[in-house]
């Protein structure tokens, strides 16, 4: 035990003495969180659009007005023909062209169908999808109001009312989801990259040899290396969650204790990846790159930026090996949905198994005696 404590003490001293690293480890995630959580949204604001109104009737003007007044769109020009309008898209001055056909009012009055054209630039796919959704929404709303006004209502005609409700996040505030998610990313990245580099640093400098000559056990060395970063990770998480609550007012429906318990296991899993990387590299640069490579892939496939649901089968299987996705799901369930232990126990166990396996491999791979 004295051995372990002595090693631990040295690790902490080294980290604390390393001012820049310390500041960055704690400060950077926080700053990033503050800035970037605000950036991580898909909400539409003032999308530049061009209107090609081929009718210019009272009805068409009302339709155009409904687009202008929502705040989602910003009409930057009116053109007479479609080609001119498309020019705006080509020159990146607008993303969307609405073409209103010349028979709009006739259609409204008679009940015969007519088609409006939505020409959307596909260069930003997510926005394109949203533009489509919002534009359709506005048009349907307008169609309803035409309907309610027109007389007489043809027999058999009715329209349906569809109410869309978003559970756990009624305003569909992206921050609810992104803030905890980004926090997890930051904590993950910082923790595992630093811990990987830390061990390799001893290799590069040569101090590891002095340790290998002593009777220390492998598990002592490895635990002493992991423990400080584990603690720091938990502290960062706590700090970050506090900010999430105070600054962003993220709901914390479920038990925070549960979150930290899960986080404790998760951090072990993730740090041990860094550890494993350090056993296969000899320079800090390599360690960083490899760990980086693995982590970026895990992060991209974690379900934070794009839904796991949308991935093809094989990718979804790979996701099962991705600890980040498990924890993101845990955070989501506990923080946003208020889920309890029953709901997440499977996920936590999976993480625990993952961590044990990774750690065992790392300890096994670390050799005090070169073969």
């Amino acid at each position: 035990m004295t051995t372990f404590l002595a090693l631990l003490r040295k690790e902490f001293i080294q980290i604390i003495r390393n001012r820049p690293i310390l500041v960055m480890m704690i400060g950077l995630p926080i700053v990033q969180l503050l800035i970037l959580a605000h950036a991580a949204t898909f909400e539409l604001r003032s999308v530049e659009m061009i209107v090609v109104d081929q009718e210019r009737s009272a009805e068409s003007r009302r339709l155009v007005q409904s687009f202008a007044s929502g705040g989602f769109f910003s009409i930057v020009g009116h053109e007479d023909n479609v080609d001119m309008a498309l020019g705006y898209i080509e020159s990146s001055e607008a993303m969307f062209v609405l073409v209103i056909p010349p028979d709009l009012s006739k259609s409204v009055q008679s009940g015969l169908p007519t088609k409006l054209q939505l020409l959307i630039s596909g260069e930003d796919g997510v926005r394109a999808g949203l533009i489509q959704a919002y534009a359709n929404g506005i048009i349907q709303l307008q169609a309803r109001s035409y309907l309610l006004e027109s007389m007489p209502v043809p027999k058999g005609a009715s329209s349906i009312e569809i109410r869309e409700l978003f559970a756990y996040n009624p305003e569909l505030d992206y921050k609810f989801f992104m803030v905890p998610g980004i926090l997890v990313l930051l904590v993950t990245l910082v923790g595992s990259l630093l811990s990987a580099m830390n061990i390799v640093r001893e290799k590069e400098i040569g101090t590891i040899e002095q340790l290998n000559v002593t009777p220390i056990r492998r598990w002592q060395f490895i635990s002493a290396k992991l423990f400080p970063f584990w603690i720091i990770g938990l502290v960062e998480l706590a700090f970050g969650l506090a900010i999430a609550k105070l600054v962003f007012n993220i709901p914390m429906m479920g038990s925070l204790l549960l979150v930290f318990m899960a986080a404790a296991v998760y951090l072990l899993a993730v740090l041990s990846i860094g550890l494993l990387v350090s056993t296969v590299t000899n320079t800090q640069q390599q360690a960083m790159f490899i760990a980086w490579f693995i982590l970026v892939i895990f992060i991209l496939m974690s379900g934070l930026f794009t839904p796991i649901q949308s991935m093809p089968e094989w990718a979804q299987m790979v996701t099962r090996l991705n600890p980040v996705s498990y924890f993101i799901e845990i955070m989501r369930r506990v923080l946003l949905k208020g889920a309890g232990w029953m709901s997440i126990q499977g996920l936590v166990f999976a993480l625990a198994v993952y961590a044990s396996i990774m750690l065992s491999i790392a300890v096994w791979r670390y050799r005090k005696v070169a073969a």
Partner: protein
Amino acid sequence: MTSNSAQDLYAIQAVDLTRKFGHFVAVDHINFHVEKGEVFGFLGANGAGKTTAIRMLIGLLRASEGTAKVAGFDIHTETERVKSSIGYMSQRFSLYEDLTVLENFELYGGIYGLSRSDVREKSSSALARLGLESHKKSILSSLPLGWKQKLAFMVAQLHNPPIVFLDEPTGGVDPITRRQFWEMIYEAAAGGTTIFVTTHYMDEAEYCDRVSIMNAGRIEVMGTPGEIKEMLGAKSIDEAFVRIARPVED
């Protein structure tokens, strides 16, 4: 559990110790022994295989063939027990530059299982011996190389190991410091510690009780400095060495 008590007379005994890297034989079936309390000089030019040999003895590298006993323990089967019984000072200086002098002592003291009071006591006397008490809270990187080397030697002895391995301990320091270092080595030996030191400074060989000279993986001669000089008809070990080392035939 050691087998033959006769062999416990020796601090170190190597039998056909060999290390290959692919086809290259770095250490070629060397045989030697070191008596308890001896100062044994392990000489050879750079690349002769000294560091490889020492690394096998202290359990950093596995032997390809042959075996050795260090402090009575087999290097193959009882590696960890070997490590408990030795101290080591590596060629690349390997104390922690970003820790203070005292913190380095405390770290290694703790690792070897010494109690806090033990560590305090021993580090005090070590620092007193070196005249460095006023620097106990100094960060290691701020100290000159000579002091660091001496400190490393002290740290290696902190847990009173019966054998201390020193790999090129006086590399890069001035002659006075080298002198002082060897005084410390004698003190340790006088206290019963066996010292196994490698060096490529041939003049340091004169300070040892016995010496072996390695060349191209083999031990070419072994004995007291006097014996060797006689054997080779040389006036100094330096000269003796030159006579041994031949250009490698390609």
